[in-house]
């Protein structure tokens, strides 16, 4: 599921960035092309102006030269005829030429062209001035002015060449500008179009991805809904006030009655035109109202704890209308908002009625069987006890031995029944402990006294090393049971003539009791399960031990219920030391320890 959800998520993040980049690039490109076009059109206009200026310069040059030539021709005619009218014609031609020369450099921007035009203008004016002087002479003479004419002709040629060159240059520039513009505009536009097309493809793919992700989300929602609806337990999500934000179908089956509608969902409260699915998502039902005040009283400390961010589990009982009470097991898990603060909780409520009923039946069965076994055992044990006690007269040796065997096995059967009952109480949590302040050292001494006979029958002696009082809070009968069990185990597994060493240490924090033997030790394969139920090492000595296989598991149960630890270790030099530790009661003072 996470694998199929990740790719759309990644695309959702990266696609808009890509699209924005591409669109931005395309727009920048278009703007660049527009700016280039604008600039090139300006350049083209400039080229055209330069061209027309050169053309008009040429025209004015022709006009000026023509006017000067006309003045010269009129002067020659006057020099030959010396007639007043020819003199007037010359004066008129010279005046026109001067007027044309006035306009020669007008409007031409400063630069090389204007410089050359002014040079030519000066030369031509000089020629006109000489012509004037020749016309004023008596007799008038046509000026044989070859040098000045040569100068003006050279300047004219220069100017023509210059104007032609600048004309050509501006035309070439215009051509190249136009060529560049065409290239830039064409390719720029093409590139921008390509980018926009790509952007469209990317956007289309992005939408397709989003649609796929939405479909996947919807499919996963449906799947989740189907899963939660098929679970035969209440699954819900509640906000901080206990209102259900989400609930599965089981809620409707449990609380909805025949109609299937939950109590909080009255028809008038149902928004118009809303599908039942959406309604189920936003039902305003409160868990407190569903289960009632009694159940809520049990639940509220756990709800408090889950709202502080700790998962909680508890059991409670709930009676549906007109039905038998149900034993329910609830699990609460915190739901956090995006900042990690608890925003509500998830609820899982399972009907464990059949389970608790089975447990109850088993406990009842074990209890009944144990009690029923005790009745015949009482008669058997009583009869044997009276026989062995000689109440009915002395018994022959063989008969006494047989009665003794029968009695031992009867005792063993009684122990087994007691152990089974204890073990059952332990596992069902029904073992009642009467905890009081006591001295473990004194209790150990009592256990030793009570087991003296047992130890002697195994040819074993038991010693006690208890340097001082060891105050604890414990159930004296149950703790005595533990010590007796450890001591009798040690006796059973000790070699003939061996010593079982019992030690009691009263520390500040903990008190510890140790029972050391010199027996064969505990087989490695058995060490893991020695404290389990019906655990007995498989060995040739099993018969000798005569145990039920429940003793150590009961010991562990009692010690752990009293807040302690139990264990064993190999003893240096052979044998085993069993030990248990309990919290010391020294804080309350050793004075009231009994």
């Amino acid at each position, binding site marked *: 599921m996470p694998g199929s959800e990740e790719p759309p998520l990644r695309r959702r993040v990266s696609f808009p960035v890509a699209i924005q980049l591409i669109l931005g690039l395309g727009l920048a490109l278009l703007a660049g092309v527009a700016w280039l076009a604008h600039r090139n059109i300006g350049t083209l206009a400039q080229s055209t102006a330069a061209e027309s200026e050169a053309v008009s310069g040429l025209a004015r040059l022709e006009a000026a030269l023509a006017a000067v030539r006309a003045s010269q021709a009129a002067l020659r005619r006057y020099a030959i005829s010396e007639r007043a009218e020819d003199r007037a014609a010359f004066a008129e031609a010279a005046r026109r030429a001067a007027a044309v020369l006035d306009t020669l450099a007008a409007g031409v921007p400063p630069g090389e062209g204007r410089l050359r035009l002014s040079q030519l203008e000066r030369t031509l004016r000089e020629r006109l001035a000489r012509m004037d002087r020749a016309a004023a002479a008596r007799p008038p003479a046509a000026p044989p002015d070859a040098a000045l004419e040569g100068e003006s002709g050279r300047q004219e040629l220069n100017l023509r060449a210059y104007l032609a060159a600048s004309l050509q240059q501006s035309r070439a520039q215009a051509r190249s500008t136009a060529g560049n513009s065409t290239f830039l505009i064409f390719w720029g536009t093409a590139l921008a179009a390509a980018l926009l097309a790509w952007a469209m493809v990317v956007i289309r793919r992005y939408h397709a991805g989003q649609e796929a992700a939405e479909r996947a989300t919807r499919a996963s929602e449906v799947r989740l809904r189907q899963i939660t609806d098929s679970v035969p337990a209440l699954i819900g999500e509640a906000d901080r006030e206990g209102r259900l934000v989400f609930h599965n179908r089981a809620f409707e089956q449990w609380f909805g009655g025949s109609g299937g509608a939950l109590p909080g969902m009255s028809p008038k409260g149902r928004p118009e035109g809303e599908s039942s699915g959406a309604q189920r998502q936003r039902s305003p039902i409160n868990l407190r109202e569903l289960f009632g005040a009694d159940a809520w009283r049990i639940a509220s400390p756990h709800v408090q704890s889950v709202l502080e961010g700790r998962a909680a589990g508890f059991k409670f009982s709930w009676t549906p209308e007109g039905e038998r009470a149900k034993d329910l097991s609830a699990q609460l898990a915190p739901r956090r908002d995006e900042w990690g603060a608890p925003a509500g909780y998830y609820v899982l409520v399972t009907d464990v009625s059949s389970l608790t009923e089975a447990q109850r039946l088993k406990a009842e069965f074990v209890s009944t069987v144990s009690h029923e076994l005790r009745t*015949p055992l009482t008669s058997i044990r*009583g009869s044997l006890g009276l026989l062995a006690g000689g109440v009915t007269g002395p018994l022959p040796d063989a008969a006494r031995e047989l009665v003794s065997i029968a009695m031992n096995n009867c005792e063993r059967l009684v122990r087994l029944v007691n152990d089974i009952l204890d073990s059952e109480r332990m596992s069902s949590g029904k073992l009642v402990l009467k905890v009081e302040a006591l001295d473990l050292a004194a209790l150990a001494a009592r256990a030793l006294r009570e087991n003296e006979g047992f130890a002697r029958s195994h040819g074993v002696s038991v010693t006690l090393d208890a340097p001082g009082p060891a105050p604890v809070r414990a159930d004296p*009968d149950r703790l005595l049971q533990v010590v007796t069990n450890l001591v009798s185990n040690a006796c059973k597994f000790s070699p003939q003539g061996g010593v079982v060493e019992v030690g009691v240490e009263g520390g500040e924090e903990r008190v510890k009791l140790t029972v050391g033997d010199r027996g064969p030790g505990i087989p490695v394969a058995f060490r893991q399960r020695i404290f389990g139920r019906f655990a007995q090492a498989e060995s040739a000595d099993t018969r000798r031990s005569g145990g039920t296989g429940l003793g150590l598991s009961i010991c562990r149960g009692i010690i752990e219920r009293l807040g302690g630890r139990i264990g064993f270790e190999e003893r240096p030099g052979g044998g085993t030391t069993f030990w248990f530790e309990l919290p010391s009661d020294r804080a309350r003072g050793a004075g009231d320890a009994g």
Partner: protein
Amino acid sequence: MSEALRRVMLVDDDEDIRRVAQLALEMVGGFEVRLCACGAEALAALAPFRPQLAVLDFMMPEMDGPALLGRLRGEPLGTDLPVVFLTARAQADEVERLRALGALGVIAKPFDPMAIAAELKALWEARPARGA
């Protein structure tokens, strides 16, 4: 207190247990024993036998030990009668409960036949003095 324990009434629905207990109490303890199979019989035997101590089985059909104790307390001869329970349920809390009902003591089944008479004597000696 000075009076020695002599007459003991034993109520148990199991015939074999009754017999074993009778032998133990008579032959080991030297008591005079009256056996009853049920509560009704015990109530009927109260006046003719005038027991000093009653030993009641905890679990019996029809009228169980605690119920019989309640009935005995309603009889003139049973008001102050010391009662010891014989029970196969000897868990600490149950013993507590029986003591709270007014039992002098609780003896667990199966009992030691050689020791039961001495146990009853010890309980009898240690019984609280009745305001009379």
